[in-house]
């Protein structure tokens, strides 16, 4: 399996004007070249997702604000593009806002905190494929890498909350830490099922398996349950409503972000929306067939030959995985604007007394299922 980086390195190495023994320089150049789109994606993702979030909330709860702000002659109003001016205004506002650091804060940790959070989200994208071969580094430990790197973010949250020297931040960070580590276990355990069935940690192998057999969502009742547990825990890990206790604005102001302003604050925002995209992409790849066309499976059951109406291929793959991820992000927003927030004790209850026992039992039952039927 060659990754996107491999092909780029080959391409660059083959050029006439590139010196023979410059492998190191070529590699660094290629890494920077693939890192730029990732950064661009994270920024655009946050802007588009915020716009989407506003519109979803406005349509669901009949909110007026997000519908009105127009730009360049676009009038607002209850239309699809109404309120797009707000997105532009947001970006300008965040860059133009004063950057304050409280005098009593621990300056070094206060500055380091968001860097860790962002770095974790940024580095996670190395392992996530968005199409066949469209991955920066195709690890043989893919799933494991993504879980490991993305969970480093919690350190940034604790640092930020502690360094702010603010009571709200401290409360928010402590709750956040408890929540993030609790929900990491169900995430790991439900991904374990898939690894058991496929026998590989590589994302490509998992999607290939689903191409040959079926999507994991439909594989067995236990993998379907694993998908639910994974998705719900994923929503909890990115601190979104109904699990947004750390940032509960009605009781904790803004949780660990209280003292941050301007761009330093939007780093948290970028990371949060990037983590949302990571969870949605992971669910799509692991349980919903990744870049496989939903039509392919449908037509194959009728024994039709491979044809154009499967809409399969490398570029359609990117289209399908985006559709699946956007649909899952929409579900996250739908949940946010439908359900109220949980209490901290309910949150711990759900993690430790519902998800973890179910996930443990799931491992056992999938083992039996695979031994009998697999």
């Amino acid at each position, binding site marked *: 399996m060659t990754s996107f980086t*491999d092909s780029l*390195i080959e391409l660059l190495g083959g050029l006439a004007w590139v010196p023979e023994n410059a492998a190191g320089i070529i*590699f*660094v150049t290629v*890494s920077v070249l*693939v890192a730029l789109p*990732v950064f661009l994606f994270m920024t655009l993702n946050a802007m588009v997702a915020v716009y989407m979030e506003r519109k979803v909330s406005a349509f669901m709860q009949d909110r007026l604000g997000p519908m009105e702000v127009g730009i360049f002659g676009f009038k607002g109003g209850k239309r699809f593009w109404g309120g797009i001016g707000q997105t532009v205004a947001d970006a300008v506002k965040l*860059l133009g*806002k*004063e*950057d304050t650091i*409280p*005098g*009593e*804060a621990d300056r070094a940790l206060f500055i380091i905190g*968001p*860097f860790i959070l*962002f*770095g974790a989200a*940024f*580095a996670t994208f*190395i392992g996530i494929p968005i199409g066949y071969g469209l991955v920066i580094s*195709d*690890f043989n430990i893919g799933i*494991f890498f993504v879980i490991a*790197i993305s969970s480093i973010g919690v350190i940034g949250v604790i640092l930020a909350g*502690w360094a*702010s*020297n*603010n*009571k*709200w*931040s*401290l409360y928010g960070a*402590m709750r956040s830490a*408890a929540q993030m*580590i*609790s929900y*990491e*276990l169900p995430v790991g*355990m439900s991904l*374990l099922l898939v*690894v058991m069935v496929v*026998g590989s*940690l590589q994302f490509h192998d998992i999607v290939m398996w689903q191409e040959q057999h079926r999507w994991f969502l439909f594989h067995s009742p236990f993998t379907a349950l694993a998908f639910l547990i994974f998705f719900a825990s994923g929503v909890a890990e990115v601190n979104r409503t109904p699990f947004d206790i750390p940032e509960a604005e009605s009781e904790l*102001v803004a949780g660990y972000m209280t*003292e941050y302003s*301007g*761009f330093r604050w939007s780093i948290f925002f970028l990371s949060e929306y990037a983590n949302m995209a990571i969870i949605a992409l992971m669910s799509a790849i692991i349980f919903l067939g990744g870049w496989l066309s939903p039509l392919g499976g449908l037509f194959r059951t009728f024994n039709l030959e491979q044809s154009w109406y499967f809409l399969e291929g490398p570029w359609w793959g990117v289209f399908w995985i985006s559709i699946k991820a956007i649909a899952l992000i929409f579900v996250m927003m739908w949940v946010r604007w439908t359900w109220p927030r949980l209490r*901290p004790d309910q*949150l*711990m*209850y759900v993690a*430790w007394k519902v998800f*973890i*026992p179910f996930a*443990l039992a799931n*491992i056992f039952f999938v*083992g039996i299922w695979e*031994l009998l039927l697999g």
Partner: protein
Amino acid sequence: MYNDFAPIPIFIILSVVFIAFALFLQHLIAPAKRSALKDSPYECGEEVEGSAWVQFNIRFYVIALIFIVFEVEVVLLFPWAVVFKELGLIAFVEMVVFLGILTVGLVAVWRRGDLDWVKMVVPYGQGRYAKLAQPQDDVDH
């Protein structure tokens, strides 16, 4: 061919560079008017009452310990899951024994009440709330 893991340090360095660049950009265009009031921590407009760096009831301390045990378990389970289909029943039985021991641990912790966020429920009108339960004569109904 290069090492699969080589992009990680480069990405980490680049994340710092990108963020530092954006912060520098903000430094150029954003105003910077500091004042003592602006530098004080936000406490809903009240004057700041002491420091936030106090001894704090880390409610989840035991939970964090249990988390480490289970996280190590999950890490141990991943290599097992990869070879699960090749080894078949033997591997499954061994892992059931291993998981069984851990499940007993989880049940024990559950019974001890370490998984509860609310450690103690004071019934209404008991302890420090005794005064609240007393009938208040001075309230007009």
